[in-house]
């Protein structure tokens, strides 16, 4: 007997939480707001766990995957176009849902402690629940249009949460920047949707995948264009080149928001989307190559920028962009399961990194500059140990989670012929840089002497430390599931959803050799960071002085924001101010209004002179009117309307 899974509860519970907290939140007592805010994601998590109980062996009575729930009334039914509200659960969706609701719930719990003193408490939780609603919709969507609804919605939630402290101008600006840059990507996504619709007539994943599978000869051409358009959307949402600029600025939002949205879940939506539509990408090898190149380039580029940042959250932001680049690299070499695996492990350790950073910031009374931190190891023990685990995980040390996933990506990249070797090299270099700047962060924050004498660091409450601990455990053992040939049990599980991993030429011990190389690289990064930031802390300054040009270029993020500003923003502003503002708005619209008013005025002025109050002119007009009537009467009686007009016209002409 198959029990229904009630997938619709997963998005709707957070939506209810959003509605309640946003409408009633201000008036409710804080404990009630917290309860509503936590119950909603907890409820969603419970439904997901119920659906996932087959993974741990209690799968009796679970319906088989893929499991689909459709609303009986279609969303759009116009002629041949039919789009339904379909929620579809397959292995990929289940993994994503576990990550989203699991990590999401932990971050909700963390927020209770972090946002304790904030006056916008209820608003925060309502936005967080809103985000969860849209994200689960995105993940559960059974067709591209519903996914797009979720896609846009998470962008909206991101805007609201980045600009949460909207009274601060930088925060409000960051929110706007995020939304606008996302929109540019969404434009590409929409074009992709339109092309898909016009070429295949359907947007449902199941139908599209069946259609494509039934025609093995279809490749290239229109697929390439569609996939590139979809990829543009992914670059916007997942902060790849050239649309990554919003993510560092998004750190203006509260730290739990950065953890949830800009590390674990929203930015991974692009990766998820590509994995979901992998059957299209498989038919467009050129598009895949571009995806891989962009991913690798972004990974390296962002890693270089993370080297010199001083704000702890900015380092983590660039690190996120870099790791996302890895995931796209994996997609680009058609190892979709590897990308999802890295997505999962990254969610664990990146969320942990952000939350721990939040704990540090909270302890330092709001200070985010690492140059003012130091020696926190003894004062914040739990934070220190959890963050250490996360740093080792992201650097790729075994047996932590990051090692398995990063390794798998590099391995599959290496297999892809000549291009693959280059991509592998780039990935390896990025791994070195990642290890270096993460340990730099570690050393600067926790070791050495306290550089700030105003702060009184104290350990955070258990509402914050609890999620940290749980995530730390996950960061340790989260990768073990992918151990083994072809990503082990993880890859096996995902294969029906994301396709088989690429065939590997069985070179003996290649994987082992590559793993050892990766670990050595990570170790090298640790040692360099140790030298520069623990043993000889004066060295970095000397190196910076030796290469002033390069140093300033990198520490100013290659002036990309300034470049965009000059090339794109300024001309647009100019155009809108002068062309649209003056010409269209003032000139045309204002001119038309002025003209109409002028006509009315003019007409009125003319007619006004008739009402002069002069009785004699009235009398004259009376006489004139009588004359006209008489003329008409005479000519009409002489023969008809038309003839009378003719007679008058002739008389006037003469």
């Amino acid at each position, binding site marked *: 007997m198959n029990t229904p899974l009630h997938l619709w509860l997963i998005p709707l519970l957070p939506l209810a939480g959003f509605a309640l907290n946003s409408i009633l939140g201000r008036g409710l007592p804080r404990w009630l707001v917290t309860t509503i805010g936590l119950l909603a994601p907890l409820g969603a998590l419970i439904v997901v766990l119920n659906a996932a109980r087959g993974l741990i062996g209690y799968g009796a009575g679970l319906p088989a995957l893929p499991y689909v729930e459709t609303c009986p009334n279609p969303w759009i039914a116009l002629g041949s176009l039919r789009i339904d509200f379909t929620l579809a659960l397959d292995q990929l969706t289940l993994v994503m849902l576990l990550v989203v609701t699991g990590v999401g719930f932990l971050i909700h719990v963390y927020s209770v402690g972090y946002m304790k003193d904030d006056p916008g408490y209820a608003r925060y939780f309502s936005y967080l629940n809103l985000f969860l609603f849209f994200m689960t919709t995105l993940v559960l969507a059974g067709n591209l249009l519903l996914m797009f609804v979720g896609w846009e919605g998470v962008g909206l939630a991101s805007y609201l949460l980045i600009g949460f402290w909207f009274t601060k101008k930088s925060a409000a600006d960051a929110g706007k920047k995020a939304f606008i840059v996302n929109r540019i990507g969404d434009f590409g996504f929409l074009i992709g949707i339109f092309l898909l619709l016009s070429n295949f007539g359907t947007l449902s994943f199941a139908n599209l995948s069946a259609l494509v599978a039934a025609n093995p000869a279809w490749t290239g051409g229109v697929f390439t264009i569609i996939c590139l358009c979809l990829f543009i959307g992914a670059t916007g949402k997942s902060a790849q080149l050239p649309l990554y600029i919003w993510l560092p600025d998004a750190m203006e939002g509260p730290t739990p928001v950065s953890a949830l949205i800009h590390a674990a879940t929203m930015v991974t939506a692009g990766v998820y989307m590509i994995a979901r539509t992998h059957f299209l990408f498989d038919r467009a090898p050129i598009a895949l190559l571009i995806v891989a190149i962009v991913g690798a380039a972004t990974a390296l580029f962002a890693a270089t920028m993370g080297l010199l940042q001083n704000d702890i959250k900015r380092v983590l932001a660039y690190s996120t962009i870099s790791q996302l680049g890895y995931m796209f690299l994996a997609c680009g070499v058609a190892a979709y399961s590897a990308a999802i695996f890295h997505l999962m492990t990254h969610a664990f350790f990146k969320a942990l990194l952000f939350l721990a950073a939040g704990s540090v910031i909270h302890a330092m009374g709001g200070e985010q500059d690492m140059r003012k931190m130091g020696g926190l190891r003894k004062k914040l023990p739990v934070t220190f140990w959890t963050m250490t685990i996360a740093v080792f995980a992201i650097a790729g040390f075994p047996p932590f989670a990051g090692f398995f996933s990063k390794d798998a990506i590099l391995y599959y990249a290496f297999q892809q012929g000549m291009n693959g070797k280059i991509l592998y090299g780039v990935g390896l270099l990025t791994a070195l840089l990642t290890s270096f700047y993460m340990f730099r962060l570690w050393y600067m924050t926790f070791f050495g002497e306290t550089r700030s004498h105003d702060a009184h660091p104290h350990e955070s409450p258990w509402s914050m430390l609890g999620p940290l601990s749980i995530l730390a455990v996950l960061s340790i053992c989260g990768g073990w599931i992918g151990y083994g040939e072809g990503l082990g049990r993880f890859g096996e599980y995902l294969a029906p959803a994301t396709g088989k991993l690429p065939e590997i030429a069985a070179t003996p011990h290649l994987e082992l050799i590559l793993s050892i190389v990766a670990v050595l690289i990570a170790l090298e990064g640790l040692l360099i960071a140790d030298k520069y930031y623990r043993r000889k802390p004066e060295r970095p300054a000397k190196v910076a002085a030796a290469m002033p040009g390069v140093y300033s270029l990198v520490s100013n993020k290659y002036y990309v924001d300034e470049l965009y500003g000059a090339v794109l923003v300024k001309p647009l502003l100019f155009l809108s101010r002068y062309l649209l503002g003056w010409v269209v708005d003032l000139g045309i619209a204002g001119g038309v209004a002025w003209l109409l008013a002028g006509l009315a005025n003019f007409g009125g002025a003319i007619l006004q002179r008739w009402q*002069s*109050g*002069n009785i004699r002119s009235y*009398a004259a007009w009376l*006489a004139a009117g009588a004359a006209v009537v008489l003329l008409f009467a005479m000519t009409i009686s002489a023969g008809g309307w038309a003839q009378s007009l003719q007679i008058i016209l002739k008389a006037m002409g003469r």
Partner: protein
Amino acid sequence: MDLLNQSVPLSWFLLLSAALFALGIVGFLLKRNIITVFLSIELMLNAVNLSFVTFAHQWHAVKGQIFVFFVMMVAAAEAAVGLAIIIAIFRARGTLAIDRIDLMKR
């Protein structure tokens, strides 16, 4: 003695009536004193009366003459009320010139 049988063409009466009417209009267009304007209106009424009587004669219809009778009655009533108004205006404005009796701002 064909005297009694000589007839005046009715068109002459009508032309006279038209001329009197036109002169009446000229009067109310050009005269400045209210009372004189009123007199011109009376002139117009009389001209119309003449044409009514003329047509009554042509068609041998007594009703034409009765209509003239009614016109006279109405003219009398109108004269009474109109003159009362003129008196009231004179009291209020102190002048009988129609150009000066207007409250509408130009």
